[in-house]
């Protein structure tokens, strides 16, 4: 089993303030890793750094993604290489329909891989199967990206896009926050349906309830920019019962 992601001594800063202070993390193919930790620990920052969000400066360390130097790549190149981030706060893009947005994204990825654009019939087929996965109606793709969406709709839209782009490593940044039980189940079912021996995930969350639905192989606890503990599901129980204070290095 080879590592899809290899992070070594990663330090990163936002507006000159160091948030990540030496992260080491290996994720093997097919694994689901849960990343837990108190607010401000650096969980979302790690997702942002992995996907190359502007404003996040890597000051030290390295990241290999499928053997490539991730830090040398643009955000879109990282996407083409198979990295996906489900945003904690998905962005609204007025005037751009989900349909056009995804068509552009799917074809950009194909082009980068030297493939021709999907025929309209094939694209439609793909679209239909993936909207069904997150239980979205056909009308949904005509709406502008995230504009006027409820919290649950936004997160379902993220999982829909993840399904469309078929990433090798997906990062779910608090995808459960603000979801009711039904929406949570739809999202989790969508994620689970995409699990395979070659696909990996990082699930960032505060709550056991998501990890009961998307069962992780490994659990990490992040505090003040460092991974202070790595273990199995028993860690989730400990945090649920005793809080983050019970976990120290």
């Amino acid at each position, binding site marked *: 089993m080879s590592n899809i992601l290899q992070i070594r001594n990663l330090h990163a800063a936002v507006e000159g303030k160091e948030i990540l202070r030496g992260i080491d993390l290996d994720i093997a193919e097919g694994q689901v890793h849960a990343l837990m930790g108190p607010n401000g620990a650096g969980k979302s920052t790690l997702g942002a750094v992995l996907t190359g969000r502007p404003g996040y400066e890597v000051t030290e360390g390295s990241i290999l993604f499928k053997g490539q130097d991730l830090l040398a790549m643009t955000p879109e190149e990282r996407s083409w290489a198979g990295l996906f981030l489900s945003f904690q706060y998905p962005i609204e893009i007025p005037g751009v329909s989900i349909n056009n*947005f995804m068509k552009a994204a799917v074809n950009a990825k194909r082009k980068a891989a030297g493939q021709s654009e999907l025929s309209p019939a094939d694209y439609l087929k793909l679209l239909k199967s993936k909207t069904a996965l997150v239980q979205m109606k056909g009308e949904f793709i005509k709406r502008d990206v995230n504009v006027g969406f409820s919290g649950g709709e936004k997160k379902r839209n993220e999982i829909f896009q993840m399904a469309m782009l078929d990433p090798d490593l997906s990062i779910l940044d608090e995808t459960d926050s603000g979801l009711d039980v039904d929406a949570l189940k739809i999202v989790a079912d969508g994620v689970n349906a995409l699990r395979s021996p070659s696909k990996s995930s990082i699930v960032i969350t505060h709550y056991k309830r998501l990890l009961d639905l998307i069962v992780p192989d490994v659990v990490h606890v992040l505090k003040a920019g460092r991974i202070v503990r790595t273990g199995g599901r028993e860690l989730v129980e400990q945090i649920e019962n005793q809080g983050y204070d019970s976990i120290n290095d």
Partner: protein
Amino acid sequence: MLGRDEVPRRLTLRENDDLHIVFVARPGYSGNVDFEIDIVRPGANLEIAGLYLSNNGDKVNFNVCVRHLVGGSHSRQIFKGIVGDRAAVSFDGLIYVAQDAEKTEAYQENHSILLSDGKVDTRPQLEIYADDVKCSHGATVGSLDEDALFYMRSRGIPFEEARKMQMISFVSDILDRLPESYRNDVISRI
């Protein structure tokens, strides 16, 4: 009415007139665009929209004056555009609500995206002498939204395409007011 047609610049709106104007300043257009509109009967509805795609030293000056001289009428001014490459755009917009012109609703918006070496001056103005009114204006002048740009790129849409998509997104509500054939022509120039 379209920007292609000759636009009457001084107008008086009487009751239940419903007037929609869309003015498009395409790349290469320079000039003064003046609208002076008086609303003199209740029930009138006015919408003036403007779109500017200015570059290469274009100079466009909008001067829009909407006067509500009686109550019970509506107006909306919405001007949006993208300005770069030594172009300079100014927007002077006034909503005037006369004394006793109660139940007036008037809105005014001017939003610009600045690309490198562009310049925008905007002066949205409210001059209001009646109290039972709903009036507001908003103006922004700024760069492309970094977060939206990143969101698109994180989905694999290349930088230049994402930029273009975002510009189209930015002016989409004005584009929606154009007939389809003309709209595609405008989009192709972004």
